[in-house]
């Protein structure tokens, strides 16, 4: 059966809900999260070297927004913009949001997603590859990204992890052993 939507795409209705939400608070929260991470684990950003100055756009293809990321460690910036306004980026990575989240926490392998065409890249490929490799080493958890730890962090982890697994399944996201094995 031909696929109507990319694998793992959210239903269009969610995009409709997201569209009018204010973008600035999300951008500020993500910027602070990355800068906090850079303070706690500076070595993650050392592996980016010169690439830390180059803005990369990450575009969830199922939402009317794009993340413009300058991963400059403690000076990192994340902007949330309309996909048409991500022109400053030297490179763009596109995939459904759930797939991008799976890349962020290491559930998915970037090359496998690229081979299967669930992820696409354009612009300066090296900037995306560097960011992908650095993220893969980061072993980022949702809790770590927002800077909560301890018991609260574990509860948050489990909640987000469970929600993602359910979402991946419901949205028909690409299989990985980790996503399909329980």
């Amino acid at each position, binding site marked *: 059966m031909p696929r109507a939507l990319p694998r793992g795409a959210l239903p269009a209705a969610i995009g409709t809900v997201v569209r009018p939400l204010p973008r600035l608070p999300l951008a500020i929260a993500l910027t602070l999260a990355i800068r906090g991470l850079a303070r706690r684990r500076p070595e993650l950003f050392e592996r980016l070297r010169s690439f830390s100055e180059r803005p990369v756009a990450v575009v969830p293809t199922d939402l009317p927004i794009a993340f413009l990321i300058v991963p400059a460690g403690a000076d990192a910036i994340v902007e949330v913009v309309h996909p048409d306004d991500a022109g400053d980026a030297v490179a763009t990575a596109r995939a459904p949001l759930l797939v991008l989240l799976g890349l962020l926490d*290491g559930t998915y392998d970037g090359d496998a997603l690229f*081979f299967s065409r669930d992820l696409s890249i*354009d612009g300066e490929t*090296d900037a995306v590859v*560097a960011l992908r*490799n650095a993220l893969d080493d980061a072993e980022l958890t949702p809790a770590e990204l927002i800077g909560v730890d301890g018991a609260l962090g574990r509860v948050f982890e489990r909640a987000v992890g469970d929600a993602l697994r359910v979402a991946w399944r419901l949205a028909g996201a690409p299989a*990985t052993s980790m996503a399909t094995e329980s």
Partner: protein
Amino acid sequence: MDASLRPDPLELVCPAGTPAALRAAVDAGAHSVYCGFRDETNARNFPGLNFSPEELEAGVAYAHARGVKVLVAINTFARPGAVEVWRDSVDAAAIAGADALILADLAVLDHAAAHHPELRLHLSVQAAAGTPEAIHFYTETFGIKRVVLPRVLSVEEIARLNREVAIETEVFVFGGLCVMAEGRCLLSSYATGKSPNRVGVCSPPSHVTYGDEDGCLTARLGGFTIDRYGADEPAGYPTLCKGRFRTDNDYEDHLFGDPLSLNAATLLSGLQAAGVKAVKIEGRQRGKAYTAQVVRAFRRAVELVAQNRATDDIQALLAPLSEGGGDTTGAYQKTWR
């Protein structure tokens, strides 16, 4: 088979592009992990990848605490007038506690053999030593203990070779497949000016572009079209040896190699019988999810093979990770040639 006659399982040598991948490989059942420094001395010199000396030291500690060995690849060819950069990498790996070094360049082998006689030396696949004669030269000259065989030999040829060489052999069993003899391919250098042999990166991402043209994804290297993929067609690595080309006699297809991953899972028992000591998984540029999944499957497979049991279930487990969604046994079967 009498249990007492059962061979040891094949040593499973697993890739680690980052400290996280190293831990994932160790936790997933690797017998050994191989990795390299974050510079031109290492043949997987991709942006964002690899280890600082401090990270290597921590990685070695993590692996050793779990009974796993760490092999450090310093397997590019040293630049004229800058051989000390490669020598320094050798010294740094020795200080970090590496169990063996994987080397290709005569200059680097010479330094390691002379200054670190206690350290095991493995001959990298990049040295392309595929005959008993070549292996003999490196063994006599540098005292290498193991050779990683170039991916140009069939299982029968490997068996014959093992009868003629005194040292251990290691072969690739899964992952990206070089179509050319390793270390003897300048295709990427010719198109980009960045030499895989010298700076450690084939199809450098800095020279790769992807474009959407008429609904097709077009991959280019240095401006040369590698391939075009239709909307639902699986893509491959942007390497020239996996590209689609036209020839003077009206051929148009993947002239050098199909965009497939090597998967020799079904040949593991044959490789063990051929006298191979260790099997290697390619993929230091892959994510830790991939690493863990492949390592887990292959650890199960080498255990099953050592017990003389079937490996059919391995295939299903690995299919989703293959390049282009398919795989090949490559040169291990003579018809590949």
